[in-house]
């Protein structure tokens, strides 16, 4: 039904696209706890997902999701920092147990409760460090309405394929703003299936085939093979171990999983202009302003390139490679501590990399780039 060329204009929020995209990709349960600015996702989730459960708090949310995932479902939720903070230990659990799920994190202004109705991009440092041991979850970030359709489905399929929680990052201004949109532009979404165990030898829940990084799945309570899921350090049978070699190899595999598959889910928009010596780099809500200013500079005859990053974590090395080709690199994000720059360069930030930040309001196109910045 999609992909027809007949224009179909509608006025909708990004939340609606995100929810429908995840459902079509195979997400089948929405567990909700209310929090601004994620409430629209909860509302749409309740209307769309075959199973919707209202959790009494966000720890329960993640635990229920994990239980559902253990039976073969693909659950999703949506929250903002205060709720996400409560989920962190349980997300570690789901990561360790290798349970697929998607958590939509709608950023708002912090710290703490901060301002519920003010957007922000302040959470990627947290996402980078949230798994004890420094391991990483895939984090994809929407930067347009088109992304609100394509990335949620990819987050679901990535979660199923890698058997891991995936964070879909967005922010208040993206999910709560209504926008005119041509639905005929939406690409088809194919539902995912969990790769299940079909072998005849005794199932070992954390045993992977040579050359693979994620074990095949079997639901708990299946009548054929015993399933053991474990959030404590464990061997390939899922049995608790202190730190023996097999268990450490398992933990190393968890560390490698997201990174080694990264090339399959490195998403970014690179719009390079011949002869440009300046590049604007951005993501999420600020990418909208970045696009505007780049296009308007070009109209004025200035040369400037644009990089919008959509795969935030693990950080693809290609971003630094692209940025290294420019004399001036402007990185715009709605925080005041250059979190993306920090992720890419750590303490070795090159002098030609200039962060542009803001809190309490969206960064405007004019704040990102001046004519004299286009070298």
């Amino acid at each position: 039904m999609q992909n027809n060329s007949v224009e179909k204009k509608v006025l909708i929020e990004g939340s609606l696209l995100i929810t429908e995209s995840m459902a079509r990709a195979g997400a089948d349960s929405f567990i909700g706890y209310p929090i601004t600015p994620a409430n629209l996702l909860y509302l749409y989730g309740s209307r769309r997902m075959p199973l919707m459960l209202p959790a009494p708090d966000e720890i329960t949310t993640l635990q229920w999701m994990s239980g559902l995932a253990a039976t073969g479902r693909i659950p999703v939720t949506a929250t903002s920092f205060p709720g996400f903070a409560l989920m962190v230990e349980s997300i570690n659990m789901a990561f360790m147990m290798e349970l697929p799920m998607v958590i939509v994190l709608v950023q708002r202004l912090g710290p703490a409760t901060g301002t519920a109705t003010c957007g922000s991009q302040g959470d990627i440092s947290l996402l980078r460090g949230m798994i004890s041991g420094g391991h990483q979850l895939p984090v994809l970030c929407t930067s347009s309405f088109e992304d609100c359709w394509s990335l949620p489905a990819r987050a679901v399929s990535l979660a199923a394929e890698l058997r891991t929680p995936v964070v879909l990052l967005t922010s208040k201004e993206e999910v709560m703003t209504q926008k005119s949109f041509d639905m005929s532009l939406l690409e088809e979404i194919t539902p995912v299936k969990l790769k299940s165990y079909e072998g005849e030898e005794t199932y070992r829940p954390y045993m992977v085939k040579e050359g693979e990084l994620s074990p095949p799945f079997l639901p708990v309570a299946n009548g054929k093979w015993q399933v053991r899921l474990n959030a404590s350090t464990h061997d390939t049978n899922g049995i608790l171990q202190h730190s023996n070699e097999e268990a450490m190899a398992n933990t190393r595999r968890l560390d490698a999983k997201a990174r080694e598959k990264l090339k399959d889910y490195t998403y970014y928009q690179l719009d390079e202009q011949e002869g440009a010596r300046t590049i604007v780099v951005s993501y999420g809500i600020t990418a909208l302003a970045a696009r505007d200013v780049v296009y308007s500079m070009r109209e004025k005859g200035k040369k400037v390139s644009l990089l919008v990053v959509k795969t935030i974590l693990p950080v693809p090395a290609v971003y630094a490679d692209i940025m290294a080709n420019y004399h001036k690199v402007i990185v715009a994000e709605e925080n005041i501590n250059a979190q993306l720059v920090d992720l890419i360069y750590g303490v070795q930030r090159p002098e030609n990399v200039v962060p542009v930040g803001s809190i309490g309001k969206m960064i405007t196109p004019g704040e990102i780039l001046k004519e004299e910045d286009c070298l």
Partner: protein
Amino acid sequence: MNGILKTTALPYCKGCGHDLIAKKSAAALEKLQFTPLDVVVVTDIGCHGIIDKCLNTHTVHGLHGRSVALGAGITFGLDNPEKKVLVFIGDGGSTIGLQHIMEAARLNLNMTVVVHNNMLYGMTGGQTSGLTPQGFCTTTSADGNPFSGYDICELTSTAGASYSARIMGVGDITPSLAEAFAVKGFSLVEIMEICPSYGVKLNPRRKLSEIVESSGRKIGVWRNEKKSFIMQQGKKKNDLLASVEEVKNDFPATLEKDISLVISGSAGEGVQSAATLLARAAMRSGCHVTQKGSYPVTVGVGFSTAEVNLSPAPINFHGIDVPDVAVVTSGDGLTHSKKRIEGMKKGVLFIDESLDTPETGAEVVRHDFRSVGARSASLYALLFFANHTGLIDYEAIFRTIQESGLKEKVPVEKLREKLLQ
């Protein structure tokens, strides 16, 4: 066929009550003719939780205190009364995860929770828990716990559990456990025991039965006649896109450049819906639009502001710092938007006649917007803006009202008459 337990050599300290619970739980499951693969044992973090490797059932070992919620998720997912979800938790886990126990009891989920109440945190060294009785000595309350402990059975029973029971962890407890495991709905068994490594040592000369009795905890069963939770399956959920109304492009294009508009009024006066009508009407004339609202957390009082961008070209950035057009229909709206209006160096301000005009560089148009009634003031103001500037065909707004089913709620004829006066 395999039994529930793989071995009888369990990994607890000598004399630990957890040993009896594990063995008798296995016996109870077997008595009820559950095969190992019919059963999912969810274990908490604590001494009782290291049982996994000794079981032939499915095993799920999660976080401290969260096992009941994890088991609840599995119960939702299985939705199968033939399968048994059994949660093993300690008094420590029951303290940190009390909410999860209460929730599962309230929903009366089809699962059983076995509380290993040895009255202290065993694994971490014998500290006081929320279920430790008053006067009981622990490593962190050497003179006896000054607080009284929760009565977990009373709590789950009050929350709505089908079955709650407290038993002494001595002798053959298989029948009691089997009774609990057979319940359809939520059942909880609290088993009173004493940890030889800390409890016995710190409370010499005290007997378990005396401790339980003096704490006022009754041995017994609490029942509620209540149906187990059953999932409402099979309800077909609709494609969200199918229900979204298409906006046809059926008016000639009128807009040649971008316009940012901010309309501010009072909650309950239709500010947001008026802005949506304007946005849809603009789309009918081929415009690209964005619209968002801002209002206080208490949505029913105070100001209500909507921001609308209209453009002949696709819109990326949709923030509005200083708008091209400001529309103010009430005092609440003026207070909220005053700063922005003062920042306008050009553009137009449409403001209700009853309000003072702030200092502004915008052209000012004063009009009696509220004369059509408070609930229609915002809509009227936007119709007025359309007619006054010609940027949007006001007929497109009327047509949108007509087609959106708002015709009954909006005094269309009155608005038209006023507008054309």
